[in-house]
């Protein structure tokens, strides 16, 4: 399967819409173990991305992703701003000059982005962060693709793994970010960043499933 530039743009639009719909929900999650702004942050950031997108929609995919990353960096703030910003900057750098993406490209896009998150935030698996949604998703996707599955099938597995990873954050004790200050009191709550990460990945799947 070939992923086209309009599909990438469509993905970003869907992310903006989905994060806006889930603004209250994400903020709610953040109020339990953080400072009640994650949904507000993400929806503000992708709102800005939507303003910027028309101006770069005719550039290459790498450029579109980098612009997304820079916009997030300069409009989200908080922990998630630099982290998601780095995600898109790095994925953009990995996709430099590309006008369409292969199955492997899409995996590399996500992989480069997640590597960026880890490099900036130094999260370890089990720290109760967005990484706990991304890591199992990447692994699942990689395995599926290696098994010869097609992109949609691989992505479906990845989304399921991200969802499971997101849920798995519930019993974890946070060791990174604001939630870590709560110590044991962070246990029992789903991580907001892992949740937005799942939503972002799921939006990609839904985009590619559209005709």
């Amino acid at each position, binding site marked *: 399967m070939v992923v086209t530039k309009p599909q990438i743009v469509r993905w970003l639009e869907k992310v903006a819409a989905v994060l806006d719909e889930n603004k209250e929900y994400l903020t709610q999650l953040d*109020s339990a173990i953080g*400072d009640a*702004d994650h949904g507000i942050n993400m929806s503000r950031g992708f709102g800005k991305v939507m303003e910027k997108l028309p101006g770069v929609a005719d550039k290459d995919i790498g450029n579109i992703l980098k612009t997304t990353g820079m916009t997030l*960096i300069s409009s989200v703030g*908080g922990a998630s701003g630099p982290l998601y910003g780095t995600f898109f900057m790095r994925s953009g750098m990995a996709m430099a000059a590309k006008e369409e993406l292969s199955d492997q490209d899409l995996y590399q896009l996500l992989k480069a982005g997640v590597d960026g998150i880890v490099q900036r935030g130094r999260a370890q698996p089990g720290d109760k962060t967005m990484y706990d949604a991304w890591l199992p998703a990447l692994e699942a996707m990689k395995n599926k693709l290696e098994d010869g599955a097609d992109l949609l099938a691989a992505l479906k597995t990845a989304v399921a793994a991200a969802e499971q990873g997101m849920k798995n954050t519930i019993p974890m004790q946070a060791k990174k970010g*604001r939630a870590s*200050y709560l*110590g044991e009191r962070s246990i029992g709550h789903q991580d907001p960043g892992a949740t937005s990460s799942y939503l972002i990945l799921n939006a990609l799947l839904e985009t590619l499933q559209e005709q």
Partner: protein
Amino acid sequence: MKKLINAVEDVVREQLEGMALAHPDLLKVHFDPNFVYRADAPVKGKVALVSGGGSGHEPMHGGFVGMGMLDAACPGEVFTSPTPDQMYEAAKTVNSGEGVLFIVKNYTGDVLNFETAAELAHADGIAVQSILIDDDVAVKDSLYTAGRRGVGTTVLAEKIVGGAAEAGYSLKQCADLCRKVNQYGRSMGMALTSCTVPAAGKPTFELGEDEMEIGIGIHGEPGRTRMKLKTADEITEILALGIIEDGPYTRTVREWDNEKGEWVDVELTDEPFKPGDQVIAFVNSMGGTPVSELYAVYRKLAQICEAKGLTIVRNLIGPYITSLEMQGCSITLLKTDEEILRFWDAPVKTPGLRWGI
């Protein structure tokens, strides 16, 4: 939600506009990206101090811009770290050629955003150093957390290093002094009520009529323990002993190596207070607690310090690092020496702190 605000999207901008209108002699406000800076910046021959963080902690940081304190402050959205372009533009605006010191409160968001800003400024040829404030003893562990939060000591560091910069300290000297102040300071806070983030529209957390939250941060994030409401004396004792009896604190922080142009990991250990120490005692309102109640806290704090052999040589009492309209207080004790005291006493002229001029 009861606040003196207009539309929630405009809260930060309008408050900044109000500051600009109120203090044209002291400061200017740059919008998009947002930062507050000294009216006379860049100040020739002086290292520039830049701090910043989420809004909602006023007067920190914007209210501390002016002679003898900050050269610029970068306000994020309410309780949300500012973005790197703010600190980068602010640094360019206030740098006089002597370099820029970033004073960063240790929250993942602030740290990550200031890191990017430092990289950007360095790439532009600006000499940058960056010091973390991590003084909140309510966070015990650095191995299993993002490390201690930056709270009350930030205010004291901005004043003291501001005095030093004014006196001609070099960038490295300012950074060293700032690191020392951070290592000498410890804080702990508590909340009687929650605060409400304007954009959220409802209280960040719920506290029963007879409950309080001990070890709260400054963003309405839950604290270490929730307990039944106690008297001012008991509360003061919990906070003061939490600070005074806190043991050595060791952690690794990332500092920007200005020569090498890269991040280096530095291991720091803060020594506990000991009898004979001279301290600055800072009793801070979380925003909704009036100064009258702070004096009751100060009264007990003075008694405890005396009993523990600590001599209070200076104090600061009032709302300086707040959490919107939250009721509650925090205590900061800062060990002093001749250098710290000299720059604490130095003149300062900002909207939020002023003396000697």
